[in-house]
């Protein structure tokens, strides 16, 4: 089938309105003309407007691209379709006129949703990134936002291979800091939400726009600081009745396994480390036969393993490859069925999606079923439109503790078997680290499912009061219910034993509603084009949660382990939260003579999170544009320029992402917390000395209220230029922005003497982001039929903190007491020692500044500063390496991010290549503590890098000499662990084939397409020099879910 163009669908609506205006005004001397309209791929094009030029007489093509119209025999027919070049054909008495429409490369006529309004792309004055939904719809992902990675300039998406398909999105580097959220606001069919986009069926998305700057986003003032992503979902189209079926299957592979030691090598490095330390090599597992040669060098003859590795003789030594044991080749399947129907009384669309994603880590799985019903009905001659958009989704995620599993696959020793000889679990033996068998962790968590059901949708009514003036009311709800039954089983795994079993059943319930009322007025008179919207919006969100748990189950089975079957430790708990927002807003867009553009926005938001005096924040914005290409002088002198527009915008947006009760001083009873991993903050005490039973409990302060809290505000200026040459064959844009977020809501650390609950939200920081975005495209269909479509984008931002109260500087990286404050740096900058190579010989050690623990084979840390006689820090080596020598050692913010998409189409084939990369990002390689050192964590497994550690005969190594004890404190935060995280990945490689018409017809289809693709096929990273990335995947330097390499096959059919 043809690649469904989202623009085409939108046209249906527009055409409908046009037709309505046209009304019945046909003249008398007529001939009937009919024909078929095809696109460049030879497929029938529905929804093309056919108008008799100079009249209001017209029609639209049906699903097969056919039309029929009664016209004056001497007239001219105008065929137009958004995104395609308009064609005019003289009728000249013909009764049959067939037309092939060609795509207008980047549609300046494209209609873009900008928030309570739509605008022509040519008229945009803000920084709006329009996602080419076509290019991402076949990507095998359960989250459309994931597919944005590298596609939109200025949007930085980080993601991993988790079947849950989570993604972190930062627009222009985010705008806030501390515990504030940098996540953008999502508006789906007019309903705001801050998360859970993975619960949306990617196939349902019709358009996706990223509002990046304040002038674009401030219409959503209150929560637009981090940018806004607008999503509209597909609707039925008039005159179209069809069934679409899309399916794909993806095979995923774990291609980035870390190289860790095998059983023999693990024994070897332990021996070597002992020899280096001058100790007799010993081990609770390995027996060493070794001797000293005539030169006095230790020589290892052989390593012996015991019959059993544990005192109770349940485990034989093994050579377990833990990364293999925890991973698998896995499959993603997606099936999507869409039914749509439309006529002049309304339209409807029903879509169903089944998505099952097994992860490359065993037992990880996400299973989603989503259903959508979008419909609208017209009354009063089309003046009243009533409709709804409704999403119902069910997501079932298997809850495997993935961070633990990835960590354990590295640290668990290879000599430990997966299973003991009696079929139980293998596990750590004496002398080993007390870490779990990761296979057990997977197997004993696979029964734990987190089930989420979500109803997300809205009902609307749109009434045309008089021509051009519309009132629209929209009521939407977002209701998420999550149910989670977690069963902890007892286990015996090496010396790790627990006889506790427990079921914890928990549920949370998240309900919010939004009620929006808008008045929209559009007027076009002469050269003036005015579009004004004003409205109110009320939002209320409530959250409640509770849990119950019991222990003591006689059978460990999911069918048995419901709460009722437990007999011990009967516990429960729960809580709630809520907030509300009320807003008034207005926006006016004005276009004069298609050349001069202006837009003005103001929004006033009230939030329950702020104190009485500061309930409201006002967020104004304006932007201006000048379409130079529409000026006569340019048109004549430089006809090659098809588009040239300069834009400037300024505006303020807000943020209110703080605790719901930040303004209140409050106390709470904390009967009991689980202090396994956090500090106990309980308020109950066994005052009677009875040792058990119910305890008396009191209250503790949990927050100091701040009644004068106010909105955090970001002021942003955006300057942009859009350009296109040769009828938009070349096109592009450049944007420069400056963004200053002030009064940032932070909950800073405070003087301890204030005691518990002294934490208080304040408006107390300023952050500055500056950057640019550059987009370039080329789109051409050559005479031989080869279509080329290239788009590239590159963007950059610099993020720095410019103000923080002095006393809280310590809470951020740096050493403010010695003049090294985070001000002027990014708030997430790396701060530590500079690792300056390895001591090669005793002379070097002796001549080096005083450094506790310095020795041959150890890391040198650079002496960069010290205190002068007045106790003031100066940047001059003082002969001592100490905490004064810490400095800025890397910025985790990338220098720039980029993407390149190339589509080649020829006849029925198309080829798509998509590259994405980031450059100049300093990552902290968490693995390195374990891959490079035998001294920081004893009893774990290590990386194969330890095999190439420095020795007096292997002096070129960058890995310090093996030792058993970290006497040089090499665990310290230093540049040794900071590596170049730059990468370039071939994210997507796809070949598609559109089945030719003839064949389709015989199959009773209207279109058919198959494709194959590969994802993450190639990765380029820095693998040379001191700064090289020594881990496997710079995109995932820690213990995150690994990114798979995957291969898909897919089919799209339309009936």
């Amino acid at each position: 089938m043809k690649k469904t163009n989202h623009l085409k669908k939108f046209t249906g609506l527009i055409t409908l309105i046009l037709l309505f205006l046209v009304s019945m005004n046909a003249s008398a001397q007529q001939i009937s003309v009919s024909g078929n309209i095809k696109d460049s791929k030879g497929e029938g094009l529905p929804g093309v407007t056919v108008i008799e030029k100079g009249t209001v007489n017209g029609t639209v093509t049906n699903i097969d691209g056919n039309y029929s119209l009664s016209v004056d025999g001497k007239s001219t027919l105008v065929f137009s379709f958004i995104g395609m070049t308009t064609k005019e054909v003289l009728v000249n008495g013909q009764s049959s006129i067939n037309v092939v429409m060609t795509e207008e490369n980047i549609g300046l006529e494209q209609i873009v949703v900008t928030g309570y309004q739509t605008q022509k792309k040519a008229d945009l004055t803000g920084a709006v990134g329009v996602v080419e939904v076509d290019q991402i719809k076949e990507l095998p992902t359960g989250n459309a936002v994931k597919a944005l990675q590298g596609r939109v300039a200025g949007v930085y998406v980080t993601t991993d291979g988790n079947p849950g398909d989570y993604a972190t999105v930062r627009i222009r580097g985010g705008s806030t800091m501390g515990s504030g959220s940098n996540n953008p606001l999502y508006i789906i069919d007019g309903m705001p939400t801050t998360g859970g986009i993975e619960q949306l069926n990617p196939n349902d998305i019709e358009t996706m726009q990223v509002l990046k700057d304040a002038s674009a986003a401030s219409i959503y003032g209150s929560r637009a600081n981090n940018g806004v992503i607008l999503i509209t979902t597909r609707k039925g189209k008039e005159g179209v009745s069809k069934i679409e079926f899309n399916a794909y299957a993806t095979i995923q592979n774990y291609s980035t396994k870390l190289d860790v030691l095998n059983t023999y090598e693990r024994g070897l490095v332990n021996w070597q480390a002992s020899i280096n330390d001058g100790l007799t090599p010993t081990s609770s597992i390995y027996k060493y036969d070794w001797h000293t040669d005539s030169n006095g060098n230790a020589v290892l003859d052989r390593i012996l393993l015991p019959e059993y590795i544990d005192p109770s003789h349940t485990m034989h030594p093994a050579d377990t490859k833990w990364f293999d044991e925890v991973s698998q080749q896995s499959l993603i399947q997606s099936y999507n069925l869409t039914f749509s129907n439309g006529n002049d009384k309304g339209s409807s669309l029903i879509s169903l999606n089944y998505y099952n994603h097994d992860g490359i880590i065993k037992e990880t799985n996400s299973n989603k079923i989503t259903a959508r019903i979008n419909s609208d009905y017209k009354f009063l001659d089309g003046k009243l439109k009533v409709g709804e958009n409704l999403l119902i989704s069910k997501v079932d995620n298997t809850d495997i503790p993935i961070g633990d599993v990835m960590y354990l696959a590295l640290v668990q020793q290879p000599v430990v078997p997966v299973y003991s000889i009696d079929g139980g679990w293998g596990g750590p033996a004496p002398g080993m680290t007390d870490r779990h068998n990761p296979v057990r962790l997977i197997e004993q968590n696979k029964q734990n499912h987190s089930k989420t059901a979500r109803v997300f949708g809205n009902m609307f009514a749109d009434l045309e009061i008089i021509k051009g003036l519309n009132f629209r009311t929209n009521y939407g709800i977002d209701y998420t219910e999550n149910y989670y039954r977690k069963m902890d089983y007892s286990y015996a795994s090496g010396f790790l034993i627990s006889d506790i079993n427990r079921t914890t059943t928990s549920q949370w319930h998240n309900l919010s509603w939004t009620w929006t009322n808008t008045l929209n007025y559009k007027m076009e008179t002469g050269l003036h084009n005015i579009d004004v919207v004003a409205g109110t919006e009320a939002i209320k969100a409530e959250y409640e949660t509770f849990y119950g748990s019991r222990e003591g189950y006689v059978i460990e089975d999911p069918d048995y382990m419901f709460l009722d079957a437990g007999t011990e430790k009967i516990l429960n708990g729960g809580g709630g939260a809520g907030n509300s927002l009320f807003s008034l807003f207005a926006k006016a867009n004005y276009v004069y003579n298609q050349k001069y553009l202006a837009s003005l926005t103001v929004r006033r938001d009230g939030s329950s999170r702020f104190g009485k005096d500061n309930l409201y924040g006002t967020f104004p914005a304006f932007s201006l544009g000048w379409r130079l290409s529409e000026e006569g002088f340019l048109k004549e002198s430089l006809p090659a320029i098809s588009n040239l527009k300069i834009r400037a915008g300024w505006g303020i947006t807000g943020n209110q992402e703080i605790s719901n009760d930040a303004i209140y001083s409050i106390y709470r009873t904390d009967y009991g917390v689980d202090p396994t991993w956090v500090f106990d903050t309980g308020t109950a005490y066994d005052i009677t000395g009875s040792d058990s039973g119910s305890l008396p409990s009191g209250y503790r302060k949990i927050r100091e209220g701040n009644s004068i809290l106010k909105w955090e505000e970001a002021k942003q200026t955006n300057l942009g230029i859009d350009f296109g040459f040769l009828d938009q064959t070349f096109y592009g844009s450049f944007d420069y922005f400056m963004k200053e977020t002030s009064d940032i809501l932070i909950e800073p650390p405070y003087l301890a003497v204030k005691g518990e609950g002294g934490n208080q939200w304040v408006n107390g920081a300023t952050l500055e982001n500056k950057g640019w975005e550059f987009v370039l495209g080329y789109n051409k269909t050559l005479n031989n039929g080869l279509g080329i479509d290239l788009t590239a984008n590159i963007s950059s931002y610099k993020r720095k903190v410019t103000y923080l109260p002095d006393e809280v500087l310590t809470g951020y990286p740096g050493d403010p007491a010695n003049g090294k404050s985070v001000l002027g740096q990014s708030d997430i900058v790396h701060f530590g020692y500079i690792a300056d190579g390895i001591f090669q010989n005793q002379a070097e050690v002796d001549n080096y500044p005083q450094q506790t623990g310095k020795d041959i084979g150890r890391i040198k840390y650079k002496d960069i500063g010290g205190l002068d006689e007045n106790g003031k820090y100066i940047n001059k080596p003082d002969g001592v390496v100490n905490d004064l020598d810490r400095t800025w050692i890397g910025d985790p913010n990338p220098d720039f991010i980029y993407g390149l998409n190339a589509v080649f189409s020829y006849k029925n084939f198309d080829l798509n290549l998509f590259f994405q990369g980031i450059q100049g990002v300093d990552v902290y390689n968490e693995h390195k503590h374990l891959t490079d050192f035998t001294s920081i964590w004893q009893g774990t497994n290590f990386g194969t890098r330890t095999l190439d550690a420095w020795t007096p005969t292997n002096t070129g190594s960058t890995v310090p000499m093996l030792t058993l004890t970290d006497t040089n404190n090499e665990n310290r935060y230093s540049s040794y662990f900071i590596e170049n995280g730059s990468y370039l990945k071939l994210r997507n490689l796809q070949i598609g084939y559109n089945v030719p018409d003839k064949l389709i017809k015989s199959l009773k289809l209207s279109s058919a397409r198959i494709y194959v693709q590969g994802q993450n096929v190639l990765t380029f990273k820095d693998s040379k020099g001191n700064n090289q990335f020594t881990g496997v995947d710079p995109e995932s330097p820690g213990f995150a879910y690994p990114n798979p390499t995957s291969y898909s096959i897919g089919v799209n059919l339309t009936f």
Partner: protein
Amino acid sequence: MIATGFLVSCSDSFLEMAPKSTISSDQLLTPENAEGMAIAAYSELGNDHYTAPNSLWPYADNTSGDAYKGGGGTGDIWEFNFMELFAFNTTDNPLIDQKWYRLYVGIGRANEALKVINELTANEFPNKTERQAEMRFLRAHHYFILKTMFKYIPWIDETVSGEAFKEISNKEFTDQELWDKIADEFQFAAENLPEMQAEKGRVNKYAAIAYLAKTRLYQAYEQNEQNAVTSINSSKLEQVVSLVNQVIASGKYSLFPDFGYNFLQPHDDGSTESVFAVQRSIDDGTPKGRLDWGNMLNYPMNPEYGCCWFHIPTQNLVNSFKTDENGLPQFNTFNNSDVKEGADFQNNTFDVRLDHTVAIPGHPWKYDPNFIYQKDWARAIQIYGHFSSLKESQHYECACFQKVPPFIASSKNTDIIRYADVLLWKAEALIELGRQNEALPIINEVRQRAANSSGMLKFNDGNPVSNYKMEIYKPGENCTWDQDFARQALRWERRLELAMEGIRFFDLVRWGIASDYINNYFAKESTKREYLKDGKFTKGKHEFFPIPQNQVDFSKGLYKQNNGW
């Protein structure tokens, strides 16, 4: 449209959202809630965590040559490793800051309770004065620990309101004035608390008197700005003697017949030796029980436990239990040879308290002859040797015992003041007053009880676990009891009696001997434990922990850093 207008008009009330499941300070002003606030203040005694334990082992045992940090290696809670080695420690060590913060949380809870209690009249709240006394006791307890760890500390009480806390320096009071402030609290508590409390968890008059004695004892050793002991105040010492006498005269306390009962949960209730303890509970409706979280890393690695082998007795400590042919400590020669395992414990003679304190390969664990401690229960033998700590751990079959995977805990109460400790304060005061002869019977009482405590230390065949030989001091017969000797004997006795109980480092600093003592320890012990070779104690600096850098910065420099840091 009408609806829109309606929404605009009522938007202010629409924007009012009351906080959920919380209570405001106004609502707290009732007698019931005043009791609740007092409970919450007690609760903080048990709000423990391994990162800042209330048993104080990382600050007092780990820093004094009695214990190694232990665990998986030096990087496993590196913050404690830095404390152990001193040389690496810095003012921004996050776990020092955390301890400081937790102690002020304790003070804050007492202050919050006092604010509510003070608002109520004695008519409304008949327990008013008594609860005030309890709260001031608890507050002083946290201040005492702060004082011994940090020397100069800001003093915050319930009268400090609003932003006034920002103006209070850690140098508002002198070293001696701070001791007096703490003493005043205990004095008030002593005057207003009943002799007996029906509820065992509440502090009583004699606990307050005892703590006052402890305060005066520390105060008596007057220090200069360089932390050197410049003089010993005899009137303070006399107060110590008289205060301890009151405790003794109360008749409420006595030494347990067996030393080991102090470390067994079943003897918690009805303890005659516990003067002040943190109450722990299990099966109490909280998620995991209110257990001794501060010790939850301190169990060995055998299947019955499995984590995490922290708080490991040093070779030096184990050697110090050796006795000579008279059954007295080997004051000068104890560390000339190491007792490690097997026959070492039969070929030498030992103080009985050894096997109550230290788990030794081949010796019964926690008095169970069928449950023998093995070398492979240890975790990082190459770094920290193969001993384990016994006092804070409980037998896995104890009803108080609970695994909190991956950790281990019990509901054994944690003693803060033990009667034996109280008796030894008096002995110490007497010796420094030159009345060592009066101290002799006290030390001997403690020793004699220890000598009598081998009943639970037997193998299945009835043989004693180690070769015990200990005697009381008999002047003229096995020693010459002059002041120097008595001082040496007292200090030795305190080490063996209170080893691994979170006290030792503060004793060394009080006596003014920390620097020499700890550097001597490093010199010898680093030949056995390589990681100690960079350990170095700087005189005039390391006697106290640094004022946490965070706090200095948050105070905008109002807090002055301790000497040497």
